[in-house]
C-alpha cells in the first residue's frame, strides 16, 4: 500500500478539512514543504526580539524605581501591565499557530514544526521567558525543518531560550579566565547531557558520563547577553582541548567554531541517524514501529549526511508508513486543531477570538487532556504512546471538549453524519454513523464524531 490522500491528511498533515482538499501525492506534499511558508506570513507569530524589547522596558522601569522609590507603586503598575500583555500575547501566538494548522494546505510543515519543537523542547523558567516559547519555535525551529539537521541542531542549541532553559548561560570552564577571577564559578552539565541524550545520540547512544563532562567544558563560553543576544564569551570558555566521543576539539584558540565543528560531527553520527529516524517514525506512524521502516529512514538520513528532505521522503515513500493501521492517538493540540479544521470554523471567527476565549476553549481543556501548553514536565517534551493520552481523565477531557466547544466556534453546527464523512472519509465506521443518526442532540452528535476512535487516532 502506498500514498492515499486521507492518510496523507490525517497521519502526515493536520487532518481532513471542510474546505480544503487533501494532498494528492508525496511530491506535492514535499514540494509545498520546500516552497514558501505561506502560513507564517498569514498568521503571524512574533520573534524573540519582541519579547526581549519588553524585558528591556521592564529593566528600565526597575532602574527608575530604584533611583526614585517614590515612583514605586506607579512603576509596579506599569510592569504588571507589561506582564499581562506578554501573557496575552502568548495566547494570541497560540491562536496564530492553531490557525496555521486549521487553514493550511501544507499540513506536513505544521506537523514537522511541532515535532521538532518538541524534540528540542524549551520552557521559560522565569518572568518574561515563560511567554517566549513560540518565538523560539518561530526563530530557530520553523525556518530550519527542511534543510540539514546540523543547521537545526545549531539553531536550537544556540538560541537564548535553549541556553537559558538548560542552564548553559552561566556555565564557565574551571580553568577559564572567569573562573580564575571567581573560583566558585564553574561547569553546569545540563545542556551537554540533553544534547547527547535527547537531541542527538539518544540515551542508548555511545556516550558516557565523561563525554557529558567534556562536552560541558567544550560548551563553556556559549551564553546569552541582553545586548548582543547569543554570544560566545572566550573568557568563560575552558581552554581545552576536550575529547568528546573519541575526538579532540579546540585547544589552541577558544572560539565558537570548535563547538560548531562538534555539532556538525554529532549531527552525522550513526547513533543520531538511528535515534532521529526512530523518533520520526514513532511520531508519525506507530508507537511500535516497523523496524524496516526505521532502518530505511535512518539509512536515508545517514547517506544524505542528515538532509531532512531526503529523510522525510524516505519515510513518505516507504509502504509501511502508509500501510500501518492507525494506532496512535493525536496529541491534544492536533486533536483540537484537526477538529476545528474538519468543522470548517470561519477564519474571521477564529482569528477574532479573544485571548480569554482561547484560554477557556483551548488552553485549559488541553491541560486537562494532559498537554499544558508550552509547559511539558521535562526537557523530553510530550509523550508519544497512545496509552499515555487516552487515560480515563485524558479521554474524559477530550469528550467534554468535543461536546461543548465546537458549538461555540460554529453556532450553526453541521449535521453530525455529514461532518463524520468530511472528517473521516473512508475511515468512518458503521458504528459511528449509526451513533450520529441515533443522537437527538446536534452538539452531542458532533461531539461523538470528534470523540470517536477513528478521529482520535492517526
Amino acid at each position, binding site marked *: 500500500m502506498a500514498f492515499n490522500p486521507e492518510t496523507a491528511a490525517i497521519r502526515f498533515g493536520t487532518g481532513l478539512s471542510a474546505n480544503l482538499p487533501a494532498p494528492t501525492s508525496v511530491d506535492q506534499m514535499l514540494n509545498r514543504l520546500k516552497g514558501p511558508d505561506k502560513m507564517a506570513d498569514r498568521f503571524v507569530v512574533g520573534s524573540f526580539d519582541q519579547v526581549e524589547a519588553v524585558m528591556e522596558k521592564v529593566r528600565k522601569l526597575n532602574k527608575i524605581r530604584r533611583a526614585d522609590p517614590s515612583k514605586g507603586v506607579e512603576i509596579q503598575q506599569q510592569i504588571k501591565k507589561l506582564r499581562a500583555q506578554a501573557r496575552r500575547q502568548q495566547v494570541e501566538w497560540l491562536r496564530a499557530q492553531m490557525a496555521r494548522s486549521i487553514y493550511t494546505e501544507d499540513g506536513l510543515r505544521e506537523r514537522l514544526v511541532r515535532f521538532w519543537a518538541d524534540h528540542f523542547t524549551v520552557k521559560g523558567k522565569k518572568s518574561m521567558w515563560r511567554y517566549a516559547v513560540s518565538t523560539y519555535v518561530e526563530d530557530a525551529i520553523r525556518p530550519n525543518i527542511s534543510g540539514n539537521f546540523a543547521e537545526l541542531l545549531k539553531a536550537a542549541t544556540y538560541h537564548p531560550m535553549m541556553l537559558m532553559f538548560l542552564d548553559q548561560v552561566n556555565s564557565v570552564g574551571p580553568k577559564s579566565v572567569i573562573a580564575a577571577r571567581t573560583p566558585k564559578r564553574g561547569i553546569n552539565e545540563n545542556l551537554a547531557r540533553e544534547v547527547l541524550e535527547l537531541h542527538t545520540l539518544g*540515551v*542508548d547512544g555511545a556516550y558516557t558520563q565523561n563525554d557529558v563532562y567534556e562536552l560541558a567544558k567544550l560548551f563553556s563560553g556559549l551564553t546569552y547577553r541582553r545586548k548582543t543576544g547569543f554570544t560566545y564569551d572566550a573568557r568563560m570558555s575552558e581552554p581545552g582541548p576536550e575529547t568528546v566521543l573519541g575526538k579532540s576539539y579546540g585547544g589552541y584558540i577558544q572560539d565558537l567554531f570548535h563547538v560548531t565543528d562538534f555539532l556538525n560531527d554529532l549531527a552525522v553520527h550513526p547513533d543520531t541517524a538511528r535515534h532521529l529516524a526512530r523518533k520520526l517514525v514513532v511520531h508519525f506512524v506507530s508507537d511500535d514501529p516497523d523496524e524496516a521502516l526505521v532502518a530505511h529512514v535512518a539509512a536515508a538520513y545517514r547517506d544524505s549526511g542528515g538532509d531532512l528532505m531526503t529523510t522525510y521522503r524516505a519515510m513518505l515513500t516507504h509502504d509501511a508508513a502508509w500501510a500501518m493501521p492507525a494506532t496512535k492517538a493525536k496529541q491534544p493540540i492536533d486533536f483540537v486543531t484537526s477538529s476545528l479544521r474538519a468543522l470548517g470554523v470561519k477564519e474571521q471567527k477564529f482569528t477574532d477570538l479573544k485571548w480569554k476565549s482561547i484560554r477557556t476553549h483551548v488552553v485549559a481543556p488541553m491541560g486537562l487532556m494532559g498537554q499544558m501548553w508550552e509547559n511539558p514536565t521535562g526537557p*523530553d517534551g510530550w509523550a508519544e504512546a497512545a496509552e499515555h493520552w487516552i487515560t*480515563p*481523565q485524558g*479521554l474524559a477531557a477530550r*469528550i467534554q471538549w468535543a461536546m461543548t466547544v465546537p458549538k461555540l466556534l460554529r453556532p450553526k453546527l453541521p449535521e453530525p453524519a455529514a461532518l463524520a464523512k468530511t472528517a473521516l472519509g473512508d475511515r468512518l465506521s458503521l458504528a459511528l454513523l449509526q451513533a450520529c443518526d441515533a443522537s437527538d442532540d446536534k452538539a*452531542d452528535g458532533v461531539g461523538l464524531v470528534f470523540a470517536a*476512535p477513528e478521529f482520535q487516532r492517526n
Partner: protein
Amino acid sequence: MSVSRRKFLQRVGILGCSAAASPLLTPMSFAALPSDNRLVVIILRGAMDGLDVVQPYGDTALKGLRPTLKFGEAAEAADLDGFFSLHKGLSKLMPLWAKGELAFAHAVSTPYRDKRSHFDGQDLLEAGLGMDGLGRVRDGWLNRMLNAMAGVGPHTGFAIGREEMLVLTGGVPVSNWSPDTHLNLSEQSRRLLEQIYHEDPLFNASVSEAIELAEVLDPQMVGAADDDDDVAMMKQQMMASMRGGAHKRVAEFAANRLREDTRVAAFSINGWDTHNNQHQALKGGLSRLQDTILILENQLGEVWGKTAVVAMTEFGRTARENGTRGTDHGTGGAMVLAGGAIAGGKVYGQWPGLGEADLYQGRDLHPLMDVRDVSAGVMQGLFGLDQSVLEGAVFPGLDMTGTMKFTR
C-alpha cells in the same frame, strides 16, 4: 522500548475486568478491603537533591563540597538528630518529626547507574527493576504489589493527576483520575459513546472507567448535560482548572479517596531539577511536598494513623555543587517517609561519608541502600506481605536480608 505494548496490554486487562463486572460498578463494600492501612507513593520527578533536603551538616566534608549552598544553622535548617538538618522549606513538618511521624532514608538509590538520564531513571524507579530491566519495562511495582493482595477492588489503587503513573500501572485494574476533570454526559451520549468505543479496547477501557469514576466522584454532574447552561458550567470548570495550587487539589483528592475504599494512592510532584541557583530553584518543589504532607495529615483525620507516605526520586544529585550554584545529576539521594504508620523521628540508613574517596565515581553520594528495600519494608509492615513475594514478584531480584522495619 516496549513501553507502548506494555501499556496497551494493561488497558486491555482493565477492560476485561470492567466488562465482566459491568462498567457501572457500585462503590465497594468495606468488608472486602484487603487491609485497613494506607500507602501513598509520591514520585518526585526531576531528581531531588537529598543532600540539600536532609543535610548531613555533621559531615565535615560537606562545606568543602558546597561552598555557596548553605546548610545547617546557616541555612536556618532545623536540627534532626545532631548530624542531619532539615531544609527550611520543610520546616512545617518538624511537629511531625517530634511526634515520630516523619522519617527519612538517606544514601539510597535505585539500581540505576551511570548514564544519569531522568527518563530512564524514572522508568526504573517506577518499574522497580534492576539495571537489566531497562528497555523491558512492562508495569509498575505498586501494581504488582496489588496483585499479591487479596480483595483488591477497582478503587483500591488510585493514580491521581493529569499524567499517567507508571508505578501503579499494570495488570491489576486501578483507578486513574484528576481532581480538575469532569465528565457530564447525557444518558444517551453515554450509551452512544460506549457503542462507538466498543471495537477499540483502549478507548473502551478508558471511557468505562471515566464514566464509572465520574458517577462516584461527581454524582451531581450525571445527566447535567441536558441543561442549557452546560457551556457556562464548562467555562467555570475550565477557569477552575487553571487556578494555582493544583498540587493541593491532588492531595485533597487523595485524602478523600483514602478515607473511602482506596488503600494505595500514587501521584507526582515535579520540579526538582535544580541545576542552577538551587537555593531558589528548590523552593517550589519543597513547598509542594510540604503542603501535600500537611494536607494529607489534616484531611485524613484518624486514617492518618494508619497511613504511610513514601516520597522517592529517580536519583540524587552531585555531592559537589556545580559551577552555577546548583547541582547536576548524581546517584545516591534521600527518601521522605511520613504518616502515623511510620516509625519516625529517625534518619534510616548508613552514612557513606563525603570524603573524596567515599564518593561514588568521585562525584556522587555513594548509595548504601536500595530505594526498593525501603518500599518493600514499608509494604511488609503495612500489608503483611511475604518476603518471598516482595523479593520475587514485586521487586524481582531484591534481597531483603537486613531490610529494616520502617513502620510502627
